C-alpha cells in the first residue's frame, strides 16, 4: 500500500505539472496564430530573455505595452457590462 501512495504522488505531481505545461503549449500555439509574428518579440531574437523582449516592446510599439500601463482607471462604456466599476 505504501508503494501505491508513493506512485500516486509521483503520477499526480508529474501529471498535474505536465498537464499544465501541455495546456500552456496548446494555448500558446492557438494564440500565436492570432498575433502577427512581428509582435511576438521572442521570435525576433530567441537568445534574448523575456525581460529584454518586453522592454523593447515598451519603447518600440506605440499602443501596445506602454500605453496599456497607463490606460484608464476604471472600466467603462468600452467594456460594456463586463464588470469592473459598478458605480459608473
Amino acid at each position, binding site marked *: 500500500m505504501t508503494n501505491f501512495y508513493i506512485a500516486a504522488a509521483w503520477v499526480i505531481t508529474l501529471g498535474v505539472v505536465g498537464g499544465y505545461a501541455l495546456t500552456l503549449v496548446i494555448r500558446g500555439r492557438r494564440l500565436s496564430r492570432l498575433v502577427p509574428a512581428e509582435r511576438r518579440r521572442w521570435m525576433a531574437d530567441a537568445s534574448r530573455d523575456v525581460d529584454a523582449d518586453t522592454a523593447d516592446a515598451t519603447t518600440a510599439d506605440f499602443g501596445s505595452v506602454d500605453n496599456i500601463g497607463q490606460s484608464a*482607471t*476604471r472600466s467603462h462604456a468600452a467594456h460594456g457590462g463586463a*464588470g*469592473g*466599476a*459598478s*458605480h459608473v
Partner: protein
Amino acid sequence: MIRDILLIAGKDLRIEGRSRIGVAQVLPFALLVLLLFAFALDPDRGVLQAATPGLFWVTVLFASVLALQRNFGIEAEDGIIDALRLSGIAPASIYLGKVLALIVQLAALELVLVAAVAVFYNTDFHGVPLLVAIAAATTVGIAATGSIYGALAARLRSRDTILPLLILPLLAPVLISATRGSEVALRGEAGTGWSWAALLGLFAGAYLVVGAVLFSPLLEDA
C-alpha cells in the same frame, strides 16, 4: 493629517448613527451565530465552554466581513470615490480614517458579544489584561487588512463573494493567534499568551503600514 483622519472616521460613525445598519443588522447576525453554535455543539458536556474563544473570534470574523461590506459600500455610491479623490485628502489619511471608524464599530460589537458569551456560554473571565491586549490587537488587525480589501472590493460587481474569499485566508493567522491567546488567558496562564498578543500586534502594525502605502494606488487606479 490627524484632522483629516478624524473627519473621515467621524463621517463614517455619523453615517452609522443615521442608518444603524451595524446595530440593526450586523450585531443581531453576530448574536445569531453565537446562538447557532450552541445548537450545533452540546452545551451541557462542556464542548461549548472549551470552544468558546474560537467560536467568539469566528463570530467576530464573520460579522467583520459584513461590517466591511457596509463601510465600503457607502464609499462606492454615486461618485463618492471621485469626490474623495478631488478633495485632495491624502489617501493614507482616508485609509487611517476608515480603519479608525471600523475599530470603533468592531470594538463595540466585541463588547456586546463578550457580554453575550458570558451569559449564554457561562464563561469565567481570567487574565483580563491579556484578553484586552489580544482583543485590541486583533481588532486593529482586522480593521487594517479589512480596509484594504474592503476598498478594493467595494467597486466590484462581485464584491459580496470576493471580499470573504480575500479576507478570511488573510486573517487565518489572526484567528489562530486570537483564539490560542484567549484560551491561554482564560486558563489564567498569561505567560505564553503575551507572545500571541505580540504576533497579533505585529500583524496589525505591518498591515497598517502596508495599507497606508497601498491606498494611494488603490484609490487612484483600482
